[in-house]
């Protein structure tokens, strides 16, 4: 009987090592350890033995059964992991193939820059005001201290709808509209993004372009605040290392007026084609709101002061994105749009 057990053990070991898949092992397990399996047969034969022999052979048989069970399960694990490895190897793909192309839309670069400008001012407590693109002469000129025949009207040749209605030439009319709405509340702190129109069409002028205007009115607003606010803006949008300078300028609706230049983003101020070799780029106009304009808006220029500023969004976008041709913005070529 012991020989029989030994034979079962040796055969099982041999067959197990030869088995190549889980099915074969399972078959073998049934044959050896199953209810009608070889070991079971042996154990059933124990009852024919005498008590002493029965105990020793029974012990050996049970040990063998346990050993075989362990062998079967470890061999099963081994084969499973071999099979998994094979499957993984079989399933490998060329990971260098491109991913499934999703639709790739995007916002227009001018929208992106507009949002960037807007967000900087929003965090500084500004609100966004808007006004009509077709304006009255009054809001576009008169109330901004630009009477008829003022030479400044020439700076911005206009598209007229009728004698008194025109396509706004700047976003500044919204200054007065907002003041009228809010006066005498303080503070006024708005930016005004929007499309504007001038009768000019060449390589560096588009008959339609975008501006962002700003207006702050409160008690004790100073030219220093203008400088500080716009300097903060310049650093946020062009980087903290950009240098800023202010030059006197002229706008009919501000006095004193200033032009803000930043050190050239291309050459860092050493002089290049982008900055016409001056090292500086003009990026926005600003000034203290003219008391006459405050009055048009319903505020007393003795009691409150304010500053205003305006910038061309295309110019900022060109500098930020390295775009060298204004026309690209309105040409709407897919090859251009897809880059943003």
């Amino acid at each position, binding site marked *: 009987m012991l020989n029989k057990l030994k034979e079962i053990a040796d055969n099982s070991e041999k067959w197990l090592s030869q088995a190549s898949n889980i099915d074969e092992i399972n078959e073998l397990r049934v044959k050896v350890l199953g209810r009608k399996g070889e070991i079971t047969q042996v154990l059933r034969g124990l009852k024919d033995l005498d008590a002493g022999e029965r105990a020793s052979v029974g012990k050996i048989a049970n040990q063998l059964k346990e050993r075989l069970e362990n062998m079967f399960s470890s061999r099963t694990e081994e084969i499973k992991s071999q099979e998994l490895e094979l499957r993984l190897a079989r399933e490998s793909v060329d990971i260098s*193939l*491109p991913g*499934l192309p999703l*639709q790739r*839309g995007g*916002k*227009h670069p001018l*929208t992106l820059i507009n*949002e960037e400008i807007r967000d900087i001012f*929003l965090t500084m*407590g*500004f*609100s*966004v005001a*808007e006004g*009509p*693109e*077709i304006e009255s002469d009054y809001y576009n000129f008169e109330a901004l201290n630009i009477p008829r*025949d003022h*030479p*400044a009207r*020439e700076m911005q040749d206009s*598209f*007229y*709808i*009728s004698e008194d*209605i025109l*396509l706004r030439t700047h976003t500044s009319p919204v200054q007065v509209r907002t003041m009228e709405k809010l006066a005498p509340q303080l*503070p006024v702190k708005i930016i005004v993004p929007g*499309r504007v*129109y001038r*009768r000019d*069409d060449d390589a560096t002028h588009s*008959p*339609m372009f975008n501006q962002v205007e700003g207006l702050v009115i*409160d008690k*004790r607003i*100073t*030219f220093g*605040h203008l*400088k*500080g*606010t716009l*300097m903060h803006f310049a650093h946020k949008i062009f980087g903290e290392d950009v240098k800023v300078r*202010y*030059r*006197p*300028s*002229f706008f009919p609706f501000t*006095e*004193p*007026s*200033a032009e803000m230049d930043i050190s050239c983003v291309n050459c860092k101020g050493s002089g290049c084609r982008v900055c016409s070799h001056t090292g500086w780029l003009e990026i926005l106009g600003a000034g*203290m709101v003219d*008391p006459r304009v405050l009055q048009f808006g319903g505020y007393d220029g003795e009691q409150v002061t304010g500053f205003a500023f305006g910038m061309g969004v295309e110019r900022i976008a060109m500098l930020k994105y390295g775009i060298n041709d204004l026309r690209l913005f309105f*040409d*709407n*070529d*897919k090859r251009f*749009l897809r880059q943003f």
Partner: protein
Amino acid sequence: MGVSINWLKQYVDFNWRAEELANRLTMAGIAIEGIDQEDDDFILDLDLTPNRGDCLGMINLAREVAALNGSSIRMPEIAIKENHENINQYIKVGIDASDLCQRYAARLVKNVKIQESPAWLQKTLIHSGIRPINNVVDVTNYVMLECNQPLHAFDYNLLGNTILVRRARAGERFTTLDEVERKLDNDMLVITDGSKPVALAGIMGGLDSEIHDATVNVLLESAWFLGPNIRRTSRKVGLRSESSIRFEKGTDINGVIYAVNRAAMLIQELAGGEVVKGIEDVYPEPRKELQVTLRPERVNYLLGTELTPSQMRSYLEQLQFPVKEQKGNFIVNIPSYRPDIEIEVDLIEEVARLHGYDKIEPGLPGGETIPGGLTPFQKFRDEIKNIMSPYLNEVINYSFISEENFQRLLLPQDSNLRNVVRIANPLSEEQAVMRTLLLPGLLENASTNLARKNENLEFYEMGAVFYPAESGLPLERIRIGAVVCGHSDVNWTRHRVEMDFFYLKGIVENLLWKLGLEDCEFVVAKDFSYHPGRSAVLKYYGDELGIIGEVHPLVLHNYDIKQRCCAFELDVEKLFAHKRTRLMVDKIARYPAVERDIAVVLADEVTAAAALKAIRDAERELLKDVVVFDLYSGEQVAVGYKSMAFRMTFQSMERTLTDNDINSSVNRIVDRLQKDFKAELR
């Protein structure tokens, strides 16, 4: 304007090199755009702001330099040898329009010899962009460049002994020096010889009285004309001259005499002749001294500086403005050559720019701040762009279009969309009317891109369209529109989505769903610009939000587009008015969902929407969801019929559903389809 540094040095001393000078002037508000070297000289390219027209004169520019380096200017001395005759024997000046011409001075130089100017004078003029003509005309131009006072020289013998300044008569005709006959109107100012015009005041002289080679007696005009009137006339006749540019911006009414004397003196030097004694100077209402009060505390209040009153005073004195102190304030006499200074803030700017803008400390406004932010409508527009942008590229088109588009879009003559806001002075017919819809711009975008072989397009635009109003300003509505064509990018998988009607409808449905407007109905559209069988109007409880569809093949043809394009256009303001915040309506069920598919044969005219509605109506309780998952017509389905397959999801909040539950629901649904549409189960 080009300014010679050597010439400038005749009036003021400075040790700055050209670049330093340019920088100082720029930082003081006199922008120098560039510097050109010429032999031993540098020419500064001046870019003046419109308020500083005075610096078109060298002497005034020299005043700026003097103010910056604390020196003072040298005015050329006047030394004229006058004869013993009297100007009154020769000329009598009258002004009939003293509102437009507030001063007119005339001087006579007899027996001159007209010839070429000396080289220095010609060179000076050429640097300044003025063509040399002859010694007399060149002198008038030279003095204009020097003093910013335009002068005119008449051939006295062709003129007679009277000058009368008056408004032109309506329809009066006059030929200017450039040999163009001008038709005048009653708002224009002319210089006449008593009867007929001899000059268009401040703009250009007449052909009949110009200086020519045989001229012997020269009558010099130095006058002050009202800027706005000169500007208006100049625009109306389409003629801008060095003279009109200066008058427009305002000249120095008290500089009139110096300039005419300076010219007489130079003519005498360069063309010989004798200067007749005296000046005929008509100046009915001499300019009143303009005094402006400057309050030192106001300067610091506005600038945020801590300047002392004496600092402020010294800046004003550097500008040679006479200053008196009165009760702690400064009373400043504004020189007549600075017509740009009218009120206190103008003086504050002068103080600020001489102090230097860069020396003013930057700060941030303090005090109470109201939190900023966007209005709900502004946020809404952002939201729409955010929803669109993953799928579509945003374009920005001009707001004006060509009227021809309406023809191309097949709009009937009486279409409301043809009722446009028209630009009175467009740059071209292509940009003559304000758009009433976004579609033409989008189709043009598709057309140009396809012509450039940019295939597969997906564009959207958000912007205003414009309609005439009964009164006041035109109406502006914000819209969103899109155009798509082609399919998604080529790739190695088999997934390539065709960007057709249903693709675009998916984009619109996604938008509507996100705005809480999924109840929106798509109703068959009748629109001239769209395919009649492939377009729909979007209706939200009866309110038309816009249209979606395949563009009509004839319209595509009109835009040179050779493939199918789909487009939509929606009213953003209506979307905003209807938008709803999404609420969590569906509870998450704890019991399993069961799916069942059915395929039924339906007549072609039964729409998916109608079938889906019938299914939902038939089982309101357990049916969670139903979608169309297949659509087939062809073999095995009779002509005029289609097979439509639905996947239905059943679920209960209370229990696990049994086969019986589901079978009875499905039977109810099938019965309903049979009853409503004579549908047959496949």
